[in-house]
């Protein structure tokens, strides 16, 4: 997913830019990244990040859903010299499958033409977890943790890992999380219309069940470390997950 936005500028300052979504597949809960690459084809410096210069990322259509789109960061004093290029990155997180057009706008200044605006847009398609599972199916009778390096408590907000279970349709699986040696920390309390909150999960008609793990444990958070996610019941399996807690 990429779109080229070329801009011709009067005088000596010229540039090209490219906007793209880094990840080829995005699923709900995933933090994705938008790259805006600027190539200075002119003969004077392009300066970004001054107080009077704006930058931003918007999504359309505006459905009222928080896409978690962030502005470009770390622009202060960034200078792109003639003949050089630089990639600016913004990140966002989707909560729901769908397709959005993401528009980026970034201002810079050069000594010849003053303030200019670089803009571009790109389509971001978010597929559902089950669609992603279909693309990369989980082995029958097993579980897989997607996003098994889970960062929590950092400035980019909570992430989620997905536990995908493939097993007999309509059967139930109980999930729990354990420390090293298998010591049980607690059941995975599942908030779902079909689950009773005890950690039991029902496998759907497509033979797949998916839950998201936040890394929260009651009122606290799991500490940085490796844990086991264990499934029992219709599917018996375990997989490790690394929690990186930025609050420690």
């Amino acid at each position, binding site marked *: 997913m990429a779109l080229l936005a070329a801009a011709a500028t009067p005088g000596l300052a010229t540039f090209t830019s490219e906007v793209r979504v880094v990840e080829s597949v995005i699923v709900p809960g995933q933090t994705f990244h938008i790259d805006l690459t600027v190539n200075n084809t002119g003969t004077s410096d392009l300066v970004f990040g001054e107080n009077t210069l704006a930058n931003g990322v918007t999504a359309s259509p505006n459905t009222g859903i928080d896409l978690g789109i962030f502005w470009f960061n770390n622009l202060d004093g960034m200078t792109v010299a003639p003949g050089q290029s630089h990639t600016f990155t913004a990140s966002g997180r989707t909560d729901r499958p769908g397709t959005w057009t993401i528009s980026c706008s970034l201002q810079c200044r050069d000594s010849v033409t003053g303030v200019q605006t670089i803009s571009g847009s790109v389509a971001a398609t978010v597929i559902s977890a089950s669609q992603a599972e279909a693309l990369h199916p989980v082995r029958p009778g097993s579980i897989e943790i997607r996003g098994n390096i889970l960062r929590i408590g*950092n400035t980019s907000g909570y992430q989620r890992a997905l536990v995908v279970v493939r097993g007999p349709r309509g059967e139930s699986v109980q999930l729990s999380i354990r420390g090293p040696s298998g*010591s049980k920390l607690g059941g995975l309390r599942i*908030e779902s219309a079909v689950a009773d909150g005890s950690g039991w999960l029902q496998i759907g008609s497509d033979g797949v069940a998916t839950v998201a793990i936040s890394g929260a444990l009651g009122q606290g958070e799991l500490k*940085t470390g490796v844990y086991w996610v264990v499934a029992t019941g219709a599917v018996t399996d375990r997989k490790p997950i690394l929690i990186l807690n930025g609050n420690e």
Partner: protein
Amino acid sequence: MATSSRLLLAALVAAAASRAAAADGYSASGDASVIPLSARVQGGEPLYGGYDVFFAFENPALLARQPRKWEVAAGDLVLMGGDENLASVAAAWASRETPSGAFGAAVMASGFSMASFDEIDLAGRRTNVTVEPSIQIFGLAVMYQYSFFSMGALIEPASQSFGNLPASVTQGTDTQAKDPRFALSAAVALGRLELGGGLDACRVTDMRFGGAVRFGGAGFPAGSVGFDATLPGALKDMTVSTPDSVFPNMGSSDPSGSGTSRDFRGRAGVALDVHALVRVRAGIALDGDQSGLRGGFTVRWKAWSLDYAIGLDPTGIIGMDARHHVVVSWRAGGERKLPEGPRFLLETKERTIAVAGFEPQGVSANDAAIVSDMVRNRLVKEGTFSVVEKANMDRILAEQAFQQSGCTTSECAVKLGKVLNVRYLVVGSFGKLLDRYVVSLRVVDVETARVAYSDEAQATDVPGVQEAVTKLAATLTEAVKAK
């Protein structure tokens, strides 16, 4: 008894108070620290009623049970179907008891490793990032023992690593930090009964307690039966949400789960000496869905011992259903007197004493036999010991074809004491030097083969001999009783 009860009560009250003050939440960093490090614990033998150096890192007060001055050990624990391994080395020192008590210290280093795994992104694709988890644990335990009471403390700092994770993955997270583990504990020996308890903390404070009863003697093999239990600090469930139906919840930073506490954990087992060199054990562990059977054996040879333990969890959680643990130990240094509690609580054998026939030196054998009878009678009158009757002694020795005359060495005394099934044996001599009679005696501890006490007295006539024997018996009683 009243004193020991008060001490135990105080320990339990302190445990409850500290538990109430425990921090909320849970530190997973404690997990590795609470991996059972002792093969015997892993094998189901009661935590109390036995000892190896790793016990010091379950309950540091148990350092008081170390039978010799020095002990070093190396162990390896394989668990999670081989996906995890914990290798440990430890060394412990414990002093002999002095009037001001005994002291001990132990150090331990452990390396925990786990099978590496690849990162999988949310779309189900493997990335080029590999996680290689490992944990390093160090432990220091100290112990103070006074008579039958001992108490201890330990600290276990730890660090962890996950291989060479790129900065884009760690994003500045401190991946090495782990909370240290602390423990305070106490133990009392009340004859055949041992009790102990304490606090085990790593953010959340668990309260642990246990007990064991030793048995054996009278033709039955020695052994112990006991238990230990853990009342875990509060831990709340982890809350998750289904992705497609309730994704708006994903935006909340902290799902609200009321949660429940962790399960009670308990172990119970029995250990039995099936051979002079071999002890076997079996037990059960109650720990939620990790409940199961434990078993193992220890083989001792001179200063060495080899211990194997296996844990089986029939609940069948994959990869958790078999654990293997091997420990090799080596002991050195002088023997230590183990805490045994108030004498009136000791088993009969501990309070039993026999007096061998005294060796005549310049007097008739008959005179020496009379003096040994006098010593025997005075010990009976002292009332502290159960003294083997001479008639019974003669009968037992005749049955065993044991020749006691001339039995003055410690080696012979130990053999004689074992035949008579007593803890202490008095050997001595009665002789005449110029115009003075000399009564000399030694008390040999049959279990340790050490001379527990020795004394002599002189007299010039028969009443003087009588008085000397009375005095010797009284001081002997006090001295051995205080051992």
